[in-house]
């Protein structure tokens, strides 16, 4: 990208006698920071708009009658600033404010979660009075107030800095919390329709669940980003139920880490104590997640210590037919024998799932080609198409868009992507761009979502299946993408529409807009780059290109011809072949059959396949059916890296030491058992191998050119299904995190006003959605703006497991009717 050097107006000022240059409009507090002068603060946050509420940052500015708040005061040429370091006035003012803040602050630091990492405690220790002059009663409140199932509020600790409310309003767009009351009674609160009862009292009597059950919170703080307020609260007023009273900060070991959930690639900090992760926080990465993360990233991590975690290998006992524990040598031997036999008798397919690190994915890609001699490998465990395979083959190795490009873009078009649900940090950046830079967001989707509302976006109402046509024909979309710097974001769900990805690629090429493919899982992009596709070798090398095969063959020490130029089978074809016996064996990493478009067919394949090796963390639908189960390490116990949707490398080290091995290491051992050297036993070695591959010189594949298809026209009592995952749902990686689950958006079936009227269903009344396979019944939510004849369901939420129950996905025609029965 060409950076046009911008002329920045600068001014000169002095702070504590030090002359410093600053950009016009910069805040005094930031400039001081830059030269190493820390002005105390509570309400100030560099990513929030200035508030000037706490008054802790008062400084003395020459010519000003009274002290000024450094966090709201912008610099001026010739300004002379004196901070607490050189001005008695500033020092006294700050001490006065601190004293005010402390008069009503409880002295419960020894039992407060924030104790030990509390800005107020630190300030009090370094600048507070030794003895209090306050002899009155401190303000008291019943505590805590659950403002959601996850976030608890201890009002007496709150310093009313409004960081939490400002974050929720400015950044997340979820104004669920606000200031209530005034004066010394001012407090943070959520809207509670029952003004006669104090939720805190109900908690006292019946516990948290009681208050939530009693529906005391009509509008709880169910923001996907609520955890950030816990993190930026400068005192212990907001705590997460999951961590409350569990640890003291000074007993924790903090490690930088990367979130394993989605393709946003957030930096994280993981805090553990005595071998157990106690909490996770958003890490600072201005390029990626700034200082935020989503609640799933923060609070969903207990899956790794679930009761069904596999710690030892297992083999199927030939006599009993049951899985039993085995030693590594026995298990590896059994796996090797079985795979060898399967390979010779018909072949082995490899399904890797979307949760692997780049290093692990690379090991699978290499294992498939070198050891199993096959291109039957695919990372996708969701609806997919040949067109998508070709599309991914064409985008592999190309990284065109970054987070910061969003802020520079005049227009962004989303298709097949509900960013808030599927890539929440991407959503936050879109919102920032929309709010601060006026970036216009257009979404090709069936209805206006909350997420689209929050970026003040425009909807191009589109029935699922008609996205290709919308891309090809919408003048609005074309105009938006024709602007220099415009971006086209394509979600993985666009694969569900025939011609969709082709149309997106074509439109991007025609308009000059840059295209970004946004998958849903942390390992998806890495898997593409590592070659976990039937058409791709590592580094975006298309199989069909002899030069590409040559490069990889040489690197892997293969003979010419060892690498087949014939594209392999994709996930669905692999499962089909396994079911019919064309494939004799399967190697499966973290795949949940319920994620697949037809879970029943997938399960049948897993049952029927001759030999099944499962590399798994927990006992799953796959490992239960496997012949050999090889345990692997969860992200927290291994090192590696993910590629986020930008293609940016997100490396991380092991947080916890454990005996668990990476997939790559297990595959290395398995390969050795079969007489091959993968060289993937340790992460660094894999990285080195990948690095040595370098850039390919082989020609890249072209984008697919599949035509759009006619969209299904639903008859009476029918609708076209639209579905995507909600951020917080039944995903296996959220298992065990009940407090988090309580903040999920309630599952509803969305229909248009016209559909609701035709069915005689009112908002909130049950709606049936059914296929021959089964029926989902959810409360109807009537949407104002919606493409006609569509019904939307959450893909995998309580009461709505679309693929498992209905066996279909977006674009399918389903039956809809009123009522719970019939």
């Amino acid at each position, binding site marked *: 990208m060409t950076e046009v050097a911008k002329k920045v107006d600068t001014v000169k000022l002095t702070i504590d006698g030090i002359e410093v240059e600053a950009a016009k409009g910069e805040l005094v507090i930031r400039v001081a920071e830059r030269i190493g002068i820390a002005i105390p603060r509570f309400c100030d946050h560099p990513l929030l708009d*200035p*508030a*000037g*509420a*706490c*008054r*802790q940052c*008062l400084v003395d500015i020459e010519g000003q*009658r*009274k*002290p000024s708040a450094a966090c*709201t005061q912008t610099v001026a040429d010739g300004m002379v600033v004196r901070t607490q370091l050189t001005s008695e006035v500033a020092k*006294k*003012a700050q*001490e*006065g*404010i601190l*004293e*005010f*803040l402390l*008069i*009503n602050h409880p*002295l419960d630091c020894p039992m407060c979660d924030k104790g030990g990492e509390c800005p107020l405690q630190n300030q009090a220790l370094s600048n507070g009075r030794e*003895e*209090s*002059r*306050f*002899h*009155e*009663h*401190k*303000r008291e409140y019943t505590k805590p107030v659950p403002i959601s199932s996850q976030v608890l509020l201890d009002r007496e600790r709150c*310093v*009313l800095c*409004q960081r939490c409310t400002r974050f929720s309003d400015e950044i997340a767009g979820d104004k669920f919390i*606000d*200031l209530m*009351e*005034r*004066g*010394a*009674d*001012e407090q943070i609160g959520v809207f509670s329709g029952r003004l006669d009862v104090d939720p805190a009292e109900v908690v006292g009597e019946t516990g948290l669940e009681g208050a939530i059950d009693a529906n005391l919170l009509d509008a709880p703080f169910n923001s996907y980003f609520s955890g950030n307020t816990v993190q930026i609260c400068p005192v212990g007023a907001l705590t997460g139920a999951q961590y409350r009273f569990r640890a003291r900060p000074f007993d924790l070991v903090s490690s930088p880490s990367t979130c394993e959930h989605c393709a946003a690639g957030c930096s994280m900090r993981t805090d553990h104590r005595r071998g157990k992760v106690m909490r996770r926080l958003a890490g600072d990465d201005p390029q990626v997640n700034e200082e935020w993360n989503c609640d799933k990233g923060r609070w969903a991590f207990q899956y790794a210590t679930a009761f069904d975690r596999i710690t030892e290998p297992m083999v199927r006992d030939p006599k009993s037919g049951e899985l039993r524990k085995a030693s590594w040598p026995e298990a590896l031997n059994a796996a090797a024998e079985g795979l060898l036999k399967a390979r010779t008798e018909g072949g082995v397919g490899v399904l890797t799932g979307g949760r692997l690190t780049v290093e692990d994915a690379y090991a699978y890609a290499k294992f498939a080609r070198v050891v199993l001699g096959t291109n039957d490998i695919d990372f996708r465990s969701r609806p997919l198409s040949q067109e998508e395979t070709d599309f991914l083959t064409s985008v592999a190795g190309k990284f065109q868009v970054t987070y910061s490009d969003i802020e520079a873009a005049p227009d962004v078009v989303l298709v097949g992507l509900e960013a808030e649900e599927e890539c929440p940090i991407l959503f936050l950046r879109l919102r920032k761009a929309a709010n601060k830079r006026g970036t216009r967001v257009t979404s090709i989707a069936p209805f206006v979502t909350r997420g689209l509302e929050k970026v003040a976006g425009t909807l191009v109402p589109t029935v699922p299946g008609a996205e290709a046509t919308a891309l090809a024909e919408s003048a609005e979309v074309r105009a938006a993408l024709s602007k220099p710097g415009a971006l086209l974001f394509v979600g993985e769900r666009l694969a569900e529409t025939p011609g969709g990805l082709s149309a997106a690629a074509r439109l991007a090429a025609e308009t000059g807009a840059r295209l970004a493919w946004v998958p849903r899982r942390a390992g998806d992009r890495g898997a593409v780059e590592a070659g976990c596709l039937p058409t791709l070798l590592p580094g975006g090398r298309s199989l069909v290109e002899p030069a590409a095969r040559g490069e990889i063959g040489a690197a892997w020490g293969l003979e010419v011809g060892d690498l087949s130029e014939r594209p392999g089978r994709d996930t669905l074809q692999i499962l089909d072949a396994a079911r019919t016996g064309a494939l004799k064996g399967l190697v499966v990493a973290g795949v949940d059959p319920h994620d697949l478009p037809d879970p029943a067919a997938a399960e049948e394949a897993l049952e029927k396949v001759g030999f099944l090796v499962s590399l798994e963390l927990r006992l799953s639908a796959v490992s239960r059916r496997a012949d050999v189960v090889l345990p692997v390490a969860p992200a927290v116990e291994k090192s590696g890296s993910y590629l986020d949707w930008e293609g940016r490398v997100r490396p991380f080290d092991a947080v916890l030491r454990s005996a668990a091995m990476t997939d790559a290491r297990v595959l290395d051992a398995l390969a050795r058992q079969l007489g091959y050297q993968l060289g993937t036993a340790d992460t660094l070695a894999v990285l080195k191998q990948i690095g040595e591959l370098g850039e390919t010189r082989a020609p890249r594949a072209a984008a697919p050119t599949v035509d759009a298809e006619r969209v299904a026209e639903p008859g009476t009592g029918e609708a076209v299904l639209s579905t995507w995952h909600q951020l917080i749902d039944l995903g296996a990686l959220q298992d065990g995190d009940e407090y988090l689950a309580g903040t999920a958006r309630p599952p509803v079936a969305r229909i248009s006003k016209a559909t609701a009227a035709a069915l005689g269903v009112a908002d909130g009344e049950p709606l049936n959605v059914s296929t021959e396979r089964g029926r989902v019944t959810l409360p109807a939510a009537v949407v104002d703006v919606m493409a006609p004849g569509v019904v939307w369901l959450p893909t995998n939420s309580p009461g709505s497991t679309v693929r498992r129950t209905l066996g279909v996905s977006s674009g399918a025609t389903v039956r809809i009717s009123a009522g719970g029965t019939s």
Partner: protein
Amino acid sequence: MTTPSKEALAKIAPVLTKRWLSPDAWKLSVYERLDGYTGLKKALKAHPDDLIQLIKDSGLRGRGGAGFPTGMKWGFIPQNDGKPHYLVVNADEGEPGTCQDLPLMMADPHSLIEGVIIASYAIRANFAAIYIRGEAIHAARRLRQAVDDARARGYLGRNILGSGFDLDVVVHSGAGAYICGEETALLDSLEGYRGQPRLRPPFPATHGLYNSPTVVNNVETIATVPYIVLGGSAWFRTMGTEKSPGTKIFSVSGRVVQPGQYECGLGVTLRQLIELCGGMKPGHNLRFWTPGGSSTPLLTDEHLDAPLDFEGMMGVGTMLGTAAVQIFSDQDCPVYATYRWIEFYHHESCGKCTPCREGNYWMKGILRRILSGQGTHADLDTLLDACDNLLGRSFCALGDGATSPVTSSIKYFKQDYLDYIEGRKAPMFSPGELVGAH
């Protein structure tokens, strides 16, 4: 009841109040008969810029408390900026002791509306809002009626009196918060948000109501405008003083024979005002008084002859404020009065900033303890220091105002505090439950 001196009578200058005693002056027909809307007719023939200049020349200063030059405020509105402009009239009248805006709106609502139309025309606003305090239901009702009548008569609406100028006026009732009299909190409240002061800059002149250029003026300020248009700036300057021209309605309350609204030229003295009020109540001797509400430091009988104008009051360490003159006698306790005022600030602090929210909570506690006979000498230092840490440190002027009664009462009446502390005066309250330092 004593008769006022000649000097005192000479200060009386009924301009804004001239119709108050006429029966039914609030009715449009009566208003019209008594010169009503003649200023408007004259104004609509003038160029808006000339009107702004006229107000500048008149030296009119805001009557809402700060005395900011009104013409200058109007002149800050950027013209030809393509944005809508707004006039907002501050009728929140929350300052303790202040009672001139409500009587004005009850007795002569059309004078305010006429002022609103002229001011809107001058600043090129096509929408004006009158933000009236929530409790004043009677005045809001009267104003709404007046607005309807004015609209029916063509003074409001499209093409007013054939001038091509359009204006609509909305009377908006607040919900009873002192802070909503602060102009930026008022704007937030008017927009439907929680009323809390906004960060400045940007100022309302460029980013006011709905982020557009806005003038916020007090009721009395705006109601004065038609008279200046009719009488001219030179006439206006014949009243009051050089730097504080014109008249002001003084709302006198407390221990005088006839409390009420007295409109005088600025610069009148308390001595004269008391005379106009028929003297102190029998048996009462002046002890302390506020020149302009509780947010202006107290004065004593030493200040009977200080001129009640913006400069004169600065000269004796206080402010003219809203000219709400509250008069206390030797039968009133300055410590108790201060406690009641601080109860008010404690209750009305919006809570946004630390010093105001916590400082008032603390001061209220200390004052109550002193009045309960449990104060210490250290408490007086703590009170003064709390004021020092509050004054000029708070987000808006509400916090500054709260320190006025405390510092000035300790300055003039320290002995009264000591009498409670040292047990010479009987406690006002039974000792509350005290807790140790924590």
